[in-house]
């Protein structure tokens, strides 16, 4: 019998955390499998640390919880054997590890604070083990992670999330029409653009300051939450920001916007959250830092079906849309169109990657850092059914077994085709020591002068394409790609009185000696 949904976990790690209470987890998994069966899904649990189960699949068990390479190999083997429509990773990173990908930003002169990017993207891809995020630009698998509490000895959170997944129900689209949109005040323009695209021009955006972090149940009742605020590592708090003039200088003022301890009993069952915040989906041990759980796990334990967020520092413009704005928007759009949460996540990743010829380092980090927390097979929103599906003849044929709906197979076929095409064709910018052509440097320096940049530094990248890209491009495209480089002049703006931010990058894409694309990016 085919496996529709494969649940992978490390039973030894769960046993080490929960001891005898692992029996309760097994019972909750059995309840989920029974609920799946009633929905027409066959579900199978496999332990990646089980020698017998891994041998049966032609693979090897993982040695330790930290064995990222082993976990990737085990999941690849299991995926190839079972070809499931959904892959559910059960447990936080101290049960099944994220893959610590190289942070593409860390190769720059002025890196961000993330040493690595903990990612589930490699598990969604057919590409073999690597720490290079550029190897994982072709996701083909519908995956999600149902986390337990990091470092816990009580499985309460996991039991709750499994029970919510088991009893979940898809709801009418109309129940997801009105979102709760929360934005840092200084990013309002960008957030407005995102939610207008999804929900329409009249969608209200609540800004912080002045609002938050105490919300009423009515305010949090909407079943889509779209959040564009600051987040910090090991923090149960998201913060808003506004720019203020103090002694003639443009300075940020931060404001508490959202706190995990203020969510209790206010979240509607079935809520889906897309959070652009830095560390929005980072899982941590509540005891380590502030004795308060993460916002993401609190949402899920309060009845949310899925949380789409970032494990690390995220990127996005203050005006216009880019990086985190786009991948979150694509996720919500797919959920509203009736995709399962897992399909929405893979479609968001694919759509984000597909818009580029090549990804620059911040785009690459975005593709790697966003992940789905939640059961990937859950449909929050009912797909709109055709009238034919309601006919008596169709009902009879389905009951008799002469009609076996195969639309999900077609969708998986499309996702695999799209992912493989992306893996074969999309390039990524990689740091290079090559010199910036004199004319390009002159142009960038003139722009730097106009933009009021100080202490500017140069960065150069070559653009690397996978070998398969050649097969699907013309000789002209090949020749332009070979000659393509990216040159960045990055510096601080004088703290002028125009309210503009303090950091600016001028980015020139060059083919040969010609500048073919130019953009200016501001920090907040």
């Amino acid at each position, binding site marked *: 019998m085919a496996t529709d949904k494969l649940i992978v976990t490390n039973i030894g790690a769960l046993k080490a955390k929960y001891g005898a209470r692992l029996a309760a987890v097994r019972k909750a998994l059995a309840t989920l499998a029974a609920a799946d069966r009633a929905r027409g899904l066959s579900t199978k649990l496999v332990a990646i640390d089980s020698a017998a189960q891994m041998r049966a699949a032609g693979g090897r068990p993982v040695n330790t919880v930290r064995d990222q390479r082993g976990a990737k190999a085990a999941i690849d083997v299991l995926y190839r054997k079972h070809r499931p429509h959904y892959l559910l990773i059960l447990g936080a990173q*101290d049960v099944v590890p994220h893959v610590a990908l190289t942070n593409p*930003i860390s190769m720059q002169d*002025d890196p*961000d*604070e*993330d*040493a690595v990017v903990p990612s589930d993207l490699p598990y969604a891809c057919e590409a073999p083990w690597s720490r290079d995020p550029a190897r994982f630009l072709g996701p083909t698998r519908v995956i999600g992670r149902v986390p337990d509490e*990091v*470092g816990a000895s009580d499985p309460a959170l996991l039991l709750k999330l499994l029970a919510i997944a088991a009893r979940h129900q898809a709801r009418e689209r109309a129940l997801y029409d009105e979102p709760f949109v929360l934005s840092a005040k200084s990013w309002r323009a960008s957030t407005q653009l995102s939610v207008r695209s999804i929900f329409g021009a009249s969608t209200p955006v609540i800004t912080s300051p002045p609002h938050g972090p105490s919300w009423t149940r009515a305010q949090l009742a909407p079943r889509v939450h779209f959040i564009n605020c*600051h*987040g*910090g*590592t*090991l*923090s149960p*708090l998201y*913060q808003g*920001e506004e720019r203020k003039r103090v002694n003639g200088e443009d300075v*940020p*003022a*931060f404001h*508490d916007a959202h706190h995990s301890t203020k969510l209790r009993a206010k979240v509607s069952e079935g809520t889906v959250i897309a959070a*652009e*915040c*830095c*560390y929005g989906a980072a899982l*941590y*041990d509540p005891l*380590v*830092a*502030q*004795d308060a759980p993460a916002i993401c796990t609190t949402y899920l334990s309060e009845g949310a079906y899925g949380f789409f967020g970032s494990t*690390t*520092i*995220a*990127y*996005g413009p203050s005006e216009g849309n880019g990086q*985190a704005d786009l991948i979150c928007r694509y996720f919500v759009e797919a959920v509203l169109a009736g995709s399962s949460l897992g399909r929405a996540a893979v479609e968001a990743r694919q759509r984000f990657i597909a818009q580029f010829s090549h990804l620059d380092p*911040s785009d690459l980090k975005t593709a790697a850092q966003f992940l789905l927390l939640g059961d990937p097979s859950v449909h929050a929103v009912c797909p709109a059914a055709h009238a034919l599906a309601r006919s008596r003849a169709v009902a009879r044929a389905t009951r008799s077994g002469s009609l076996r709906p195969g639309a999900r197979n077609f969708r998986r076929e499309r996702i695999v085709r799209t992912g493989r095409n992306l893996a074969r064709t999309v390039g990524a910018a990689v740091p290079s020591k090559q010199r910036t052509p004199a004319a390009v440097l002159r142009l960038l320096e003139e722009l730097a002068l106009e933009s009021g940049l100080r202490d500017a530094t140069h960065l150069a990248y070559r653009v690397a394409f996978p070998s398969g890209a050649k097969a699907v491009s013309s000789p002209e495209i090949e020749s332009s790609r070979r000659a393509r480089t990216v040159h960045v002049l*990055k510096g*601080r703006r004088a703290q002028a009185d125009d309210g503009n*931010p*303090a*950091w600016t*990058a001028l980015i020139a894409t060059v083919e040969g000696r010609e500048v073919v694309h130019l953009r200016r*990016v501001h*920090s*907040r």
Partner: protein
Amino acid sequence: MSKTVRLEGHVTRKRVNPGSKSDHLAVVLVCATGEFTLRRQGGAPFGDTALDALVGKRVRASGVVSAGQFIVSQHEVLGDA
């Protein structure tokens, strides 16, 4: 599981994470093992004004390090840097 560490160094202000959603002027501990953005345990990740008083001082502190941040549970001021 993050381990508690003790670090000693001087405190300054520095722009961190340029161009990202976390781009800001942070209070940073500069010590022999590197630079860490300072945060108080229970304090906000951004704009915690209680840390301003440490700028220009030499401090010894204990806490946990995560993603380039030093989340301080205890500290003592050793004097001016």
